[in-house]
């Protein structure tokens, strides 16, 4: 039920009712003539409504979910409390540099740490989401080629295992996408890469480890082939969690990288934002970086703008990206330190490989059984579906009954009936074992009571949704029953009558 549906005319939440405002100098013609359609509820109605909603949340704070860093890792509370210091919260983005040296120092150090951990020559913190980081990465590749008058490069190569945002990014930057295949062991097909590369190649977009949960074994050779043809290499940071502090994308030969702070660096996000995706570049792309960037000169921090970086591809946000998210990531990297950073990758890989081995023992089919998992791995239910009719979606829904969020289903598209499982480094062995037990129980049920699995979930607040109908008949906006409250000259918005307390 929506809060609007609790609404009754005249019901008020007294403590939060609008107070009579001071007279404004807004011209009469700009003042609204009707009241906004806001729900009219009591304080208790509002409290109960939102508390109930929060109880329906399935979140990392309440449950294990095997979406891992792909969705969001555990957010250490220290990151939040430090980023919420009043000096940060009250800072105005346009306040003079001299009064914001502390904030600028944090941003500068975050730039330096990200440079170090990725092996890049420069970092810009401004992109406000992963897709924006990607867009800017490819835009810089384009700016680089154009600055050299190398205008014949019209193609971006993307492996078929890539996230859908990669080809979308290439197209948004005016490139044609050339898709290349994956071989049987989950690596990019080198013959396909060699055939695709040529004088038209502007660059290659690669996620490493790939979405198949394996490390590209030929990445050095791939880098050599693309560079030899005059193209640049773009690193999609989606799976950086698997190699954090162990291998640097710069050392693999990448020219540009985006880093999802909201994944690898544990910042909170949900409901579509706010993300944060700094871009890192190799020396040849430094002149094109998006502004602002924080510089440290003569003991003082300052913003670098278009004046300092005249070939910059420009700005992505009015100020410094999602500053609050950047601060949380800064605290996170400082908590880990250089000696803690690599343990993220080690435990993420250990947990994934443990879970993969245990699920294989339990009878699940692993999509790439000859490969060591990165921080995630793929189970395929293709054979199980043929034998029992139970699909990956059915199993995913049944997991909800067992108190687990479902892992990613039906992605990557290359693997039929797949579950992409990423436990992340923060989960204990006990949690992983409990998850394996739940998976075993469901596997047992697919043979003994397949209908129970096929009709799951049974214990959630809503049962199985009609996702076909939901996609075909999108219904996102609540429509108010016709109601027209006009505001007369005497009854202005600043004087909404308060409830008379008899």
């Amino acid at each position, binding site marked *: 039920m929506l809060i609007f549906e609790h609404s009754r005319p005249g019901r008020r939440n007294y403590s939060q009712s609008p107070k009579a405002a001071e007279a404004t100098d807004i011209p009469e013609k700009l003042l609204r003539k009707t009241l906004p359609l806001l729900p009219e509820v009591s304080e208790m109605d509002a409290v109960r409504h939102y508390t109930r909603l929060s109880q329906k949340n399935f979140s990392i704070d309440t449950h294990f979910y095997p979406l891992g860093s792909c969705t969001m890792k555990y957010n250490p509370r220290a990151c939040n409390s430090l980023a919420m210091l009043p000096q940060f919260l009250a800072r105005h983005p346009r306040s003079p540099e001299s009064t914001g040296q502390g904030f600028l120092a944090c941003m500068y150090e975050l730039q330096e740490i990200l440079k170090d951990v990725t092996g890049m020559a420069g970092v810009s913190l401004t992109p406000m989401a992963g897709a924006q980081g990607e867009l800017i990465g490819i835009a810089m590749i384009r700016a680089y080629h154009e600055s050299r008058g190398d205008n014949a490069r019209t193609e971006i190569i993307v492996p078929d295992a890539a996230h*859908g945002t990669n080809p979308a990014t290439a197209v948004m930057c005016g490139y044609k996408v050339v898709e290349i295949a994956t071989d049987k062991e989950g690596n990019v097909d080198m013959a396909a890469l060699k055939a695709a590369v040529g004088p038209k190649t502007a660059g290659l977009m690669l996620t490493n480890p790939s979405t198949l949960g394996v490390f590209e074994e030929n990445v050095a050779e791939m880098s050599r082939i693309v560079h030899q043809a005059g193209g640049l290499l773009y690193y999609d940071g989606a799976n950086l969690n698997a190699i954090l502090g162990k291998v640097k994308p710069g050392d693999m030969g990448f020219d540009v990288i985006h880093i999802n702070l909201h994944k690898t660096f544990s910042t909170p996000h949900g409901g579509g934002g706010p993300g944060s995706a700094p871009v890192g570049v190799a020396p040849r792309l430094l002149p094109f970086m998006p502004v602002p960037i924080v510089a440290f000169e003569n003991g003082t921090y300052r913003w670098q703008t278009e004046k300092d970086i005249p070939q910059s591809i420009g700005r992505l946000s009015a100020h410094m990206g999602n500053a609050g998210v950047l601060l949380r990531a800064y605290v996170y990297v400082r908590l880990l330190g250089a000696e803690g950073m690599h343990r993220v990758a080690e435990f993420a890989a250990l947990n994934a490989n443990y879970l993969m081995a245990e699920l294989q023992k339990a009878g699940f089919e692993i999509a790439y059984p000859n490969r060591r998992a990165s921080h995630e791995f793929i189970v395929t239910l293709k054979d199980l579906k043929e034998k029992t009719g139970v699909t990956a979606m059915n199993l995913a829904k049944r997991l909800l009954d067992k108190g687990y969020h479902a892992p990613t289903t*039906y992605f990557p*598209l290359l693997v*039929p009936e797949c579950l992409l499982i990423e436990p992340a480094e923060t989960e204990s062995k006990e949690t992983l074992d409990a998850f394996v037990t739940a998976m075993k129980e469901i596997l047992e049920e697919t043979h003994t009571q397949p209908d129970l699995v096929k009709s799951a979930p049974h214990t959630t607040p809503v049962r199985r949704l009609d*996702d*076909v109908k939901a*996609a*075909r008949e999108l219904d996102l906006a609540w429509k108010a029953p016709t109601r027209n409250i006009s505001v007369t000259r005497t009854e202005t918005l600043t004087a909404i009558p308060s409830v008379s307390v008899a």
Partner: protein
Amino acid sequence: MSIPNDLKYTKSHEWVRLEDDGTATIGITQHAQELLGDMVFVETPAVGRQLKQGDECAVVESVKAAADVYAPITGEVTSANPELASAPEKINQDAYAAWLFRLKPANTADLEKLLDSAGYQKLLESEDH
């Protein structure tokens, strides 16, 4: 799985039928619709568009994924199936009846280079492993 004998096929899972009037009708195969699952949206090419073999020319979107449809042969689009906009599920009901678009082939001989039903059957078996 049904793979009609009177159609031609592509490696990217389109089917083609040469009509009596010389146009070619194009759709996606039963195998393709099974992989994609319940269709929610179909985008067909504009009539009059010149397609080269291999061009991305239509989009089929299901609850699981969106997939590009590639032009099996070179030619000019002469019509698109008007039913699919409001009833994309027709592809799930009968993939060989729910055609996407028709085109006038630039060269009818191009059709001969496509897979026949036996060749497509073989392709599916090889993809299975």
